[in-house]
């Protein structure tokens, strides 16, 4: 699949962000973000904490509201219109740092809830899809356990399966491995790599530079609410242009 990678370049943009700005009180968290994401493109966003990277991907499915600029997802503009917000949320899956599984529901119920309630598929079909997804993330035997009975890595894989059950066109990952013990990071990254190679459009906020190097198409370096530098993994690693990028990379790649 690696050789067929640049396919996305011929695709239409599926996410368009123009001059997106956001404030928390007087503090400006996003200072005008411009980004175009094409279908099938895998984007990795990295940067120091407080740089606005999480805030930014959370504006894409309206968990955070942007106050200026334009966000268009799959041809739908994000406005205050609840219909638009719901439509966009149906097209985007999200995976959180803290997993955010529903602790009172079994793994199976976690995965089938949204397809049953939002897409109105019938129960049998939803459970069939859920089992396929659990096999894809490698934990079909956990289907009838509760999230509290699983390890962190397993929980995060359930969270990925839950997001995929809605058959989204875009997947957003907000630091998916930051809350995991080191030995569990790989099992989650493996699932994400498989997903990237299958052609899913992905926006990933992460510091896993190995992951970025092997599957990302484009890297964005965020600092102080702005995109400081962008480019292919090779460009950014081997030939960073900005001092801030160089400094940050030297800090996280040192060890």
């Amino acid at each position, binding site marked *: 699949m690696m050789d067929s990678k640049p396919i996305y370049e011929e695709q239409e943009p599926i996410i368009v962000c123009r001059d997106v700005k956001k404030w928390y009180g007087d503090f400006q968290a996003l200072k005008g973000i411009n980004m175009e994401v094409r279908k099938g493109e895998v984007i990795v966003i990295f940067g120091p904490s407080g740089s606005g990277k999480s805030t930014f991907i959370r504006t894409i499915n309206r968990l955070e509201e942007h106050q200026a600029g334009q966000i268009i997802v799959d041809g739908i503009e994000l406005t205050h219109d609840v219909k638009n917000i719901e439509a966009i*949320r149906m097209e985007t899956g999200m995976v959180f740092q803290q997993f955010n599984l529903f602790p009172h529901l079994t793994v199976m119920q976690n995965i089938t809830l949204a397809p049953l309630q939002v897409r109105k598929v019938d129960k049998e079909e939803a459970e069939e899809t859920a089992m396929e997804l659990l096999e894809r993330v490698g934990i079909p035997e956990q289907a009838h356990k509760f999230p509290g009975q699983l390890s962190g890595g397993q929980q995060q894989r359930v969270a990925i399966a839950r997001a995929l059950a809605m058959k989204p066109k875009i997947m957003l990952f907000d630091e998916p491995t930051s809350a995991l013990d080191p030995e569990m990071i790989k099992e989650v990254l493996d699932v994400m790599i498989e997903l990237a190679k299958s052609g899913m459009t992905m926006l990933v906020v992460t510091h896993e530079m190995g992951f970025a190097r092997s599957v990302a198409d484009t890297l964005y370096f965020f600092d102080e609410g702005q995109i400081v530098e962008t480019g292919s993994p090779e460009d950014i690693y081997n030939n960073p242009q900005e001092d801030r990028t160089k400094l940050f990379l030297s800090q996280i790649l040192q060890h």
Partner: protein
Amino acid sequence: MTISISDLAPPTERYTVLGWLKRNLFDSFGDSLLTVFAIWLTYAMLKPSLAWGFGEARWNVVADNLKLFMVGRYPAEQVWRVWVVLYLLAAVIGFTWSVWVKGKEKAGFVLIGIPLFLALLPFGMTTRLMILALDLFGFLGILLGRGDNPSFKRWSIISMLLYFPVGIVIIGGLTGDGGFLPTVKPDLWGGLMLTILLAVIGIIFSFPLGVSLALGRQSSLPIVSWICVGFIELVRGVPLITILFMMDLMLPLFLPSGIRVEGVIRAFVAITLFSAAYMAENVRGGLQSISIGQYEASHALGLSGFTTMAFIILPQALKAVIPILVSQFIGLLKDTTLVMILSLFDVLGIGKAVLGNPEYIGTSKEVYIFVAALFWVLSYGMSYASQRLETTLGVGER
């Protein structure tokens, strides 16, 4: 063969009865002295109580007025309707138990034991048979619920939902002055029946109202949230007795003349409103214990605000506050005694009325102990039921 450390059984301490006594009660001279003194003190305190309870006490005041204590001024020739309602309850409980508690039927024997125990008490022979018939109907319900019919679960919920309106209709009457079920005015309802009715109806109505108020308080629509906050703070800010007085004295001023609301209905409304305000704050506590991540995950999946509340937030929030809610329900049960000021005769009111009878002068200890015992049994029953519920739902497990 070597035994590795991991193969060893955990250390245990084993005592014989004598060993335990020696270690805990008679370890030294001082300990022994204290133990003997404590035994003597217990005996000295219990002896007069037991002598009174089994000797001097005139328990006939309870036996003679049992009908009053149970149903108040409810017409004697209509009391069979109360029995019918109780039998229905036994059947519904039996059915529900056998449908939902597959595999753990044995625990249900506790329920069967209640009528057996009551039948041992010195009631008349007819009453004892009537009480034992409760078990019969309970068994009937259990038999009905056997087998693995998937529609049984639905039927058990329907039967529970239908039980209360049907019970109220049977007790209140349907056919006017004559006929099969002649009307019995709510003001004639009394005794333990009234206490339980007030509590159960208060719980059933205040629960949805309280949850709605809690959600309304968090609403982003300012009018809705102001109204809810206003109601909660107003009602919580005054004692229940004031609300009952208001219902009694002021409600007639607001209603058009000619419309009279029965005292029982006024009491129902007052208790429900009062309980709902507290319920709202308890539920709000539960809502605040849910992390923002749960809302975000639900919204990110495209679930609407309503679905998020119904499937994600409320189940977790309510589960978290079960112990508090049960506490509140127990409080509500005991607060129903205040309806005395609306000239209603709940079980405590009946007690006072019985004591007013010259024949029973000097029996107030017996009467109040009996009433207290009834309240304790009901309260402990609720507390026990909630503990079972918590175990089943796994509260505290994460």
